[in-house]
């Protein structure tokens, strides 16, 4: 619809939200950029110009760049596992199973809980000596695992908690996708005598590609901000084993109060994320379009 008489309405609909968001987000963003060029820290507060010194320091900050690597691994690994598990769960309670609606509700529950609160609980569950996990493993003859105090198990712990928390999200999107699939291709496959495995690979999964791409992108965006779980569960540790970009920025910027350095790290973090996620999103969309063609 176009026409000059629509103009007033067009603006009235869009502007409240657009201006609100711009005011709340854009000004702080520009402020952060300005701060990143200053020398603001606990000793010298205020916007005192320091040029690109922070960014220069950042370039040589190996710990910062390593944190990106850990974030990439954690985000991609957990999201992929969440996808596979979520898909399996969605297929399991999609049809023909007794009490499937009850199980659907049950499977959705973790996503509704407060992640930090559950992380607090998981901390007690994964406790080396007082927690149930090692106790049960002990009864099965497996030695106790230092879940939170040793590097690799710590990474595994973070992944376990994240997967517990967010698989339901994938499950929800994929199940919604499954429920909206048309019946005909499945009838055709049944007539052709395809078994469950063949039907899945030739009919179900191809039709789920668009939903899968969307779900993966959304979860990747959220996972790229991973911070709360790590804050509660491992505090980035042991050492820096689970330190992601967000956590490192928290340490330097907020805890150690190196405001300007933290700002420089933040801006870089944001830019890298925007670039990386946009590329991944475009790749996924292209892959789906190619397959669906």
């Amino acid at each position, binding site marked *: 619809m176009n026409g000059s008489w629509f103009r007033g309405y067009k603006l009235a609909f869009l502007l409240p939200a657009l201006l609100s968001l711009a005011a709340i987000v854009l000004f702080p963003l520009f402020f952060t950029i300005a701060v990143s060029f200053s020398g603001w820290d606990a000793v010298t507060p205020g916007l005192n110009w320091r040029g690109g010194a922070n960014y220069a320091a950042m370039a040589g900050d190996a710990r910062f760049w390593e944190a990106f690597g850990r974030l990439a691994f954690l985000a991609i690994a957990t999201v992929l596992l969440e996808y596979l598990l979520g898909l399996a769960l969605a297929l399991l309670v999609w049809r023909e199973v007794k009490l499937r609606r009850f199980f659907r509700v049950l499977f959705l529950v973790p996503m509704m809980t407060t992640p930090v609160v559950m992380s607090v609980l998981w901390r007690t569950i994964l406790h080396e000596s007082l927690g149930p996990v090692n106790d049960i493993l002990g009864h099965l003859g497996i030695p106790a695992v230092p879940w939170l105090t040793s590097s690799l198990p710590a990474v595994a712990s973070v992944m376990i908690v994240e997967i517990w928390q967010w698989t339901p999200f994938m499950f929800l999107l994929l199940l919604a996708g499954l429920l909206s699939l048309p019946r005909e291709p499945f009838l055709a496959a049944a007539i052709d005598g395809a078994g469950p495995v063949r039907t899945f690979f030739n009919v179900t999964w191809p039709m789920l590609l668009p939903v899968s791409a969307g779900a993966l992108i959304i979860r990747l965006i959220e996972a790229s901000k991973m911070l709360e779980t790590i804050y509660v569960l491992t505090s980035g540790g042991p050492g820096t084993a689970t330190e992601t970009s*967000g956590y490192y920025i928290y340490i330097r910027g907020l805890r150690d109060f190196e405001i300007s350095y933290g700002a420089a790290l933040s801006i870089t973090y944001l830019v890298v994320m925007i670039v990386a996620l946009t590329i991944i999103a475009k790749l996924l969309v292209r892959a789906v379009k190619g397959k669906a063609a």
Partner: protein
Amino acid sequence: MNHRLFVLGKYAAILLWSAFVVGPFLWALTTSFKTAAGVTGGPTYLPWLQYEPSVDGWRKLFGATGGIDIVRPYFDSIVVTTSASVISIVLGTLAAYGLSRFEYRAGFVKNADLVFFFVSQRIMPPIVLSIPFFLMLQFLDLLDTRLGLIIVYVALLLPIAVWIMVDFFNNVPREIDEMAMLDGCTPFGAFARVILPNSLPGIIVAGLFCLIFGWNDFFFAFTLTFTQTQLLPVAVVALNSSVTPWWSLSASALISVAPLVVIAFFVERLLSRGNLAGAIR
């Protein structure tokens, strides 16, 4: 025979994952009724058989001596989350309708770019905005207040509302709006009288997602509030760092997640009725 095994395998897998889901809650439940004896000697599970249950952990939650107050954070969370969600849905639905129906152009910026602008706010890591938000709220004298948090949360939830509602509106035929206008409604009249009454499913979905993401935020509540306003997630995590016994911890954890668990039931209803199909794209 193969088929039998397959079906058995399905149920086994379902039960396995169900155990994984329910496990933490059961653990929290039993732990919330323990005392020191039930915790320090090693993990215990069954009340009366392995430890003496006590309601001490629960009592402490409601202000008993030496206890934690869980009621005020609850109230604050409800107020902040609901207000921010309502504002986000109102603003977001209006913007989504505009983006769905009209052609916007400002230079090279078009509708798709505007939608991307809204949705891409989710990429913003909270850390990037934490300092400026702190300074901004401090300047406005809104630090440690509910209003300050509501403003911040609107920025978080507005993208969600816009994302869901744009998709929803795109699936409602434009011709219905046109018909309303030819019948004498202004564009706003068409929106309010015709489209909105038919948009309830979309608004409910958007509302649920806003409530979930708003209730569960930790980072902004953590950095922007201290004593006067306290949201639930912060209150619970604060317990974590002090010398709080596990039983109070577990009790408060259970209480704080309970409300949203109820939402799971409603989400499943919408799922089965097919209302979520539109939001998924």
